[in-house]
């Protein structure tokens, strides 16, 4: 394919601004967040005192926690970029352009969008550095200079994001190439077995027993180590049981559905409980962490009089770290939901157009897709918080878990997350509305 054809292909079509802006924004956010988190970790790794190891371990946990939503977001953004070109690409194939040429054009576009987003992300990171530098750890602020990465580090992160976009575009496109009618022609609903719930129940029960027999007199550091372990187990359990729980929840919704939007939303979730879970799993994790943050806040209130200054500082720092991780997770989940929604609206444009012909109001379709996200989201957020509470209360006591300060913190964090996700769905409404406009 020559350069002139490539340039023609890459020219944005009118009215597709949002499908370019969304992945670009997503890539900008991924870049800015990765740079900020790695910058913070750089400061942690500069410490050499005996307590530094614990901080570095906690920073590593936070990084790992952010990897999943980051990868999901990056992948979703790249897929949207690739999906946008599907129609043109199939036409090109019919015109005799080789599959390699078609793939090349798509990957190049995703890469350009990612590069632009990444550049904006770097600028965003540089603008954020002075603010992030004000965050206190170990009783003093981090300092802008300490968290500013060297140019080579910034370049490496930027290049990594662009590479991720390229790889995701290739993978996404291959799926399209293998099964261009995959969505429409799906014949069987993927099964999610109840054995998942049994396994999850056993793991939770085991963890609960372990926490019960865990010595209440153990030091704070030991308690943190156990909590971190519980955390990992619980996240694994959530991922195991999440799709099954959403399936059961949606089946109940389906039986009760009297309104078209409720019927549609329940079927949308049942179409692929795993996909529905992937969209909201970030919130499950965040909601789970919120319980830890909330009880941490309440715990600090009660222990401030008795604990040593070091332990108190550590507890404050863990809370700060949790809040930062939570905010980052929420932002990424909200943006990935926005990007996924945009992708699915583009996929279903023909169907939406036909629904418009039939006189189906855009509000019905919008309510259905919003409900298909928000209903599993609320269910997941509450379920995860309850799971976390079950694990936390033997360690800190029920009084701390249900302390007003604890509950207010948990509620505020979960409400913020839910509001951000709702916003993520809402911003794609104009894209949906275009299919419902008269020609």
């Amino acid at each position, binding site marked *: 394919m020559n350069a002139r054809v490539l340039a023609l292909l890459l020219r944005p079509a009118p009215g597709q601004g949002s499908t370019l802006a969304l992945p670009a924004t997503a890539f900008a956010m991924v870049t800015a967040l990765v740079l900020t988190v790695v910058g913070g970790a750089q400061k942690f790794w500069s410490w050499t005192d005996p307590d530094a190891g614990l901080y570095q371990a906690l920073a590593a946990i936070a990084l790992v926690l952010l990897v999943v939503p980051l990868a999901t977001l990056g992948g979703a953004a790249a897929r949207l970029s690739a999906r946008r070109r599907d129609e043109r690409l199939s036409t090109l194939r019919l015109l005799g352009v080789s599959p390699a040429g078609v793939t090349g054009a798509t990957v190049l576009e995703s890469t350009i969008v990612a590069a632009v987003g990444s550049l904006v992300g770097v600028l965003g990171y540089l603008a954020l550095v002075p603010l992030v530098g004000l965050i206190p750890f170990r009783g003093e602020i981090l300092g802008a200079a300490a968290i500013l990465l060297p140019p080579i580090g910034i370049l490496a992160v930027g290049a990594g994001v662009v590479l991720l976009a390229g790889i995701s575009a290739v993978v996404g496109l291959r799926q399209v190439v293998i099964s261009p009618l995959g969505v429409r022609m799906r014949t069987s609903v993927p099964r999610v077995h109840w054995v998942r719930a049994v396994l999850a129940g056993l793991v939770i029960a085991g963890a609960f027993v372990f926490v019960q027999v865990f010595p209440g007199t153990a030091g704070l550091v030991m308690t943190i180590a156990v909590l971190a372990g519980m955390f990992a187990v619980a996240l694994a359990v959530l991922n195991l049981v999440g799709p099954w729980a959403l399936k059961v929840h949606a089946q109940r919704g389906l039986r009760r559905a009297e309104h078209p939007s409720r*019927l549609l939303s329940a079927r949308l979730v049942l179409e692929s409980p795993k996909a529905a879970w992937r969209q909201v799993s970030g919130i499950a994790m965040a909601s789970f962490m919120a319980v830890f943050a909330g009880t941490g806040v309440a715990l600090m209130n009660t222990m401030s009089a008795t604990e040593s200054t070091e332990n108190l500082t550590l507890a404050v720092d863990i809370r700060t770290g949790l809040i930062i991780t939570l905010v980052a997770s929420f932002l990424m989940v909200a943006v990935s939901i926005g990007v996924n929604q945009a992708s699915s609206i583009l996929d279903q444009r023909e169907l939406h157009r036909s629904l418009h012909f*039939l*006189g189906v109001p855009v509000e019905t379709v919008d309510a259905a897709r919003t409900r298909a996200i928000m209903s599993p989201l609320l269910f997941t957020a509450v379920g995860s918080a309850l799971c976390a509470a079950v694990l936390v209360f033997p360690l800190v006591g029920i009084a701390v878990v249900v302390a007003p300060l604890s509950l207010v913190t948990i509620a505020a964090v979960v409400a913020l997350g839910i509001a951000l996700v709702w916003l993520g769905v809402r911003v794609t409404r104009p894209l949906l509305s275009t299919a419902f406009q008269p020609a």
Partner: protein
Amino acid sequence: MNTPVLHAQSLTKTFGTTTALAGVDLIVGRGESVAIMGASGSGKTTLLHVLAGITPPDAGSVHYAPAHGAPVDITTRNERERSKLRRESFGFVFQQGLLIPELTAIENIALALMINGTSRRVALEHAAGWMASLGLAGMEERRIGELSGGQAQRVAIARAQVTGAELVFADEPTGALDSQTSNDVMDALLWSTTGQGRTLLVVTHDSEVAARCSRTVHVRDGHVIGTEIVNTGVTA
């Protein structure tokens, strides 16, 4: 011709520099089946969209006379009113069926009623009745991907009819089907529309489909160039 159910006068529509309709006049009688034929780009789909109130014309009028109630000038109605009209009084069948893949066959049909406020139980009962009438009994819980092209089109026909639509618009309803299935689908479409005293408007480029209708309107370059009464072979 029977009492007119649709009366279009001097319809014009342009898209950019392309003229899709250049002063079309058309009267459709109640209980008729009218085929609109023409080459690609002749304006036949635009004509169907304008008659159905999907696309407003640049000029001209479309009067719809329901069996009960006062006549309506579709072109003077706003988008919300036209959507309501399409939902309650018109039915649509498209080339690809365009059914909702996540819903079962019966839910796709019942949804049309539920959107108009019918309870789910009643909507499902009506939908099941239509499925049985169209030879789809036993396939209620099948997903769209589990149906053949002809079965999916019959589900689309049931969806178009379940609301009691007086007027059904079909855009190349057999375009993606083999000739035998195409015949079966036309049987179902004609039985469920004109067979029940309703009116059918079909856009097609298939002369065999047109031959099954009571009248064929030929369109070229945005003009109606002739009308053929198929049953008598009279050309106007």
